[in-house]
Structure formats: C-alpha cells, structure tokens
C-alpha cells in the first residue's frame, strides 16, 4: 500500500511539473492560431510594412506601431540603462555594505509599484511639463520613454547588482595591488567581468519596456502615425492590442492577435538572448 502511494505521488508530480511548459505552449498555440492565418491572409509584408491602420476599411498595416514600439523602447533604454548600471556600480563598489543593504531592497520594493500608477503620474506631471516646455501635446514618445525608463530601473539595477556582486573580490584586489585607483579597477576589471550579466539586465529591461501596456497607453498619446519628433504622440504595438480589444470582432480581432504574434516573437528572442547571457555569466564564475 505504501509503495503504491509512493508511485502515485511520483506520477502526479511528474504531470504537475509540466504545468509551466504546457501553459507556455498553450499560450503560443492560441496566439498563433488566432493571429498567424490572418497574417498570411493579409500578407506578412503588407501587415508588417504598410502604414495604414484602418480596420473598418480592411487596412491592417502595423508599421507605425512597430516604429513607435522601437522608438519608445530605445528611448526607455537610453534613460534606464545608464542610470541603472551607474546605480548598480555605485552601490556595489563605492558604498559601504551597510548602506547598500538598505538601498537595494528599497529599489526592489519599488519594482512593485503598479504600472498604471506610473502611467498616471506621466499624465498628471510629466505630460503637462513637456507640453509647456517643449511643445506638442505632451503625451508623446518622450513622455513614454521617460516613464518606461524609470519603470525598468529596478530590473536593470537588481540584475546588474547581482552580476557585479558575483565578481570575485580577488579580481578587484589584483587591480588595486597593481596600483589602480578604485575607478580604474571598476572599469578595467569589474565591469568587464560582469559584462554578460549587465547586458542581460538591459535586454530583460528591453523586453519589459516593449511589453508594457497600460502605462504606455496612458502617456504615449496613441495616434497611429510615424513620429517625426520626440514630442509627437505614438501608438505602440501593445497599446494597439489593448485599446481595440474591447470592441474588435472578426478580422479586426484577428489583426490584434497577429499584433500579439509579432510582440510574442520579438520578446521571446530578447529573452532567449538574455538567458544565454546570464548562463554564460554563470558558467564562467
């Protein structure tokens, strides 16, 4: 009887262990099943590279949204990556352990602030500021980039800090013993040794920024147009899905799932790169 229970437990557990992988496959299958046939029907080229998005008239070009997502994500990285990496280096290399033990958890705690709250602050504080000082409607590429840049900070800092912390102390001591200043040992030795982890943190943050939806809807302005200035409003891929989901049916809904397919594929590629970078970093230790 006891042996029996044992094999039942093992059997059930081995089934349960599939839950995450199975969910991932289920998600992929359903997004592709809804979206991919549509892409073939409209033509992959037309879907990705035509500039007119007008579901009522049967025109489904997501090119402006692709450009918008790229701009906003790139802008977010311009802000979030240097700030985050600088923070991680400073906390690890120039602050006493005791201070770092307070600041790091504080920043990680802030990772929990819901994205809608960031979006709201963007609308109430940032957009009016941009409108008053730089012109345009305020809700813009710039506003979205800044909000997303701030939102990805905890991701960049947390993962980079771990990577820098994992660099053996003997590396630093070696550099210092050779007469290097602290900063020389940081940029000639520590940063090089932690490189893969730092790169991974930026790529993961990129995936976050690209996939963020609600905050972006609130601050980006949502106009389907290729932007010509950082103060122009844009609509990202994610915003397009969320904005039109509630009243889309038939072809129009399929188009949103096809947008989801594009997003899914790009983010999976980014994650795969980040994961192999982290693995590389772990293997070298």
């Amino acid at each position, binding site marked *: 009887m006891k*042996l029996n229970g*044992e094999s039942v*437990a*093992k059997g059930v*557990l*081995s089934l*349960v*262990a*599939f*839950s*995450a*992988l199975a*969910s*991932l*496959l*289920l*998600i992929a299958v*359903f*997004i592709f099943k809804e979206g991919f046939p549509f892409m073939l029907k409209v033509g992959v080229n037309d879907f990705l590279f035509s500039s007119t998005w007008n579901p009522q008239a049967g025109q489904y070009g997501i090119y402006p949204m692709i450009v918008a997502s790229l701009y906003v994500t790139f802008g977010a990285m311009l802000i979030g990556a*240097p*700030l*985050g990496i*600088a*923070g991680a280096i*400073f906390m690890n290399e*120039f602050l006493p352990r005791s201070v770092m033990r307070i*600041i790091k958890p*504080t*920043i*990680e*705690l*802030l990772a*929990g*602030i*819901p*994205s*809608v*709250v*960031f979006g709201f602050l963007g*609308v109430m504080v940032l957009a009016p500021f941009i409108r008053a000082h730089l012109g345009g409607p305020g809700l813009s590429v710039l506003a979205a980039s800044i909000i997303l840049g*701030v939102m990805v900070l*905890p991701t960049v800092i947390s993962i980079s800090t771990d990577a820098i912390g994992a660099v053996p102390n003997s590396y630093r001591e070696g550099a210092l013993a050779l007469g*290097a*200043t*602290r*900063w020389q040992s940081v940029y000639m030795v520590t940063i090089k040794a932690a490189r893969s982890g730092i790169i991974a943190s930026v790529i*993961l943050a990129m*995936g*976050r920024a690209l*996939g963020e*939806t*609600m905050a972006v809807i609130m601050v980006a302005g949502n106009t389907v147009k290729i932007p010509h200035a950082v103060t122009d409003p844009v609509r990202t891929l*994610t915003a397009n899905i*969320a904005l039109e*989901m509630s009243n889309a049916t038939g072809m129009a809904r399929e188009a949103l799932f096809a947008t*989801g397919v594009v*997003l899914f594929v790009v*983010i*999976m590629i980014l994650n795969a790169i980040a*994961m192999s970078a982290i693995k590389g970093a772990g293997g070298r230790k």
Partner: protein
Amino acid sequence: MRISPKVAQILAVAVLGAATLLTLVVLVFVIVFVLVKGLPGVTWQFLSTAPLDMGKSGGIFPTLVGTVLLPLLAIAIALPLGVGTSVYLTEYTRENRFTQALRFGTDCLAGIPSIIFGLFGFIFFVVMLRMGWCLLSGALTLAIMVLPTIIRTSEEAIRAVPNAYREVSFSLGATRWETVLRVVLPNALPGIVTGVILGIGRSIGETAAVIFTAGSSLRMPTTVFDSVRTMSVHFYILAREGISNENAYATAAVLIISVLLINLVAYTMMHRFIAKRAK
C-alpha cells in the same frame, strides 16, 4: 589631454553617485506624490462604500473585494502546481534534458508581457471555454502568470533544506514522499510563503491581464462566474476616462500602500529565512 587617474576617480564617483541619487529621488517621488495627493481622500467611508456614478463619487468597496478574491483564487490554483513542479525538480529527478526543458519553459513564461496573458486568457478562458469575463477566468490567467515566481522561490527554498534532514528521515524508514511531506516542505515553508506573497503583490498591481479576463463589473461577485473589478483596473478606468482625479489618487494611494506592505512582508520573510539557513 589625459585626465589623471585621481581626477577620473573623483569624476566617476560624482557622476555615479549623482545617477544613484537621481534614481532614488525619482522612485521615492512617485510614492510620496501619490500618497500626498491620495491619502486625504482615503477615509473609512471611501474604503467601505460602493462607488457611485461609475466612480465619480462614493468609495471603492467592491474593488477591494475583487482585489482580495482574485489574487487568492489565482494563488490557490498556482500554489499546488508550482510547489509540485519544484518538488519534482528537486526531489524526484536529476538534471537532464527534460528538467532543462521544464526550466526553460518556466523562464520563458516569466518573460511574457501581461498583455499577451490577457489576449490568451480572453481567447481561451473567456471565449473558447465560454466562461465569460469572470473571477475564475481572471484567476486562471493570473495563476499562469505567477506560476514561474512560485516555482522559482519554492525551488530555492527546497534546495536550501539541508540534505542531512532528508537522510535522517530516510534512515528512519520514511519513503521519499513521506520525507517530502513531513520534512522537506515544512522546512521550506517560509521560502514558499515568500513566493506566494510576491505572487499576490504582482497580481494586485496587474491590469492588462485582468481587464480582458475578469472584466470590470462594479457589482459584488456572488460566484466565481461573476465579473469583478480590481483596484488596479478601477484606478485605470478612473484615470484613463478622466472620471475623477481625486478618487483616482485616493485609489492609487490604497493600491501603493497594499503592494508596498505586501512586498515588505515578503522581503523580511525571505531575509529571515536566509539568515536562519546561513547559521
């Protein structure tokens, strides 16, 4: 002109320090700003009454109920799956192709943006399984979303249980499953609970995946097949449709306080757990 190493050192410290300070200031500003604007509106009446006129006035009581029920249901679904997965990975197999595939799946799932979860939950639970926008559709979607968090934290917690504990249990004649139930899981409990709390925190702050699966009804739910509106969704609707900035700020204040408190509890628990194990 070459900058001398000493000057470079001073410059670097100044620039890096300024960047760190800026980061902290911005993040703290977000919290303080929302609390200052929102807290005056948070009264007992605001918390305990239903919204009037789509949220223009009145309180947020039904959304509080939704915010409690949805994550709890999601965790109830995700916890057995997540802990089961991590027990299987740590206690029942060695590292091989198969476990690598499972781990890869978990990592990928963790990277999927919430809007994709929303799309999937909508087409699968709401439309295909004909469950409609409801508590259960939302909870199932959120369960998949927090599954990677629960798997990772419980795996770490289980791995931290010293092998000697297991060996003693085996030497007393216990089977593997008995050892898991009576020795491994009780000792890993604080770590597992940390994962649960983190999952709850993430669920409370989530909007995109919830709005397309649980809907946004303001009525009180009576069964799991009723639609609910969480605080995040309510806040999003108030802010986005410009219904009431005042109530939006107050809702945001309640939301931020809940999420920060929850994360704080998770963090302290994790710390205690690590400190205990390190001894």
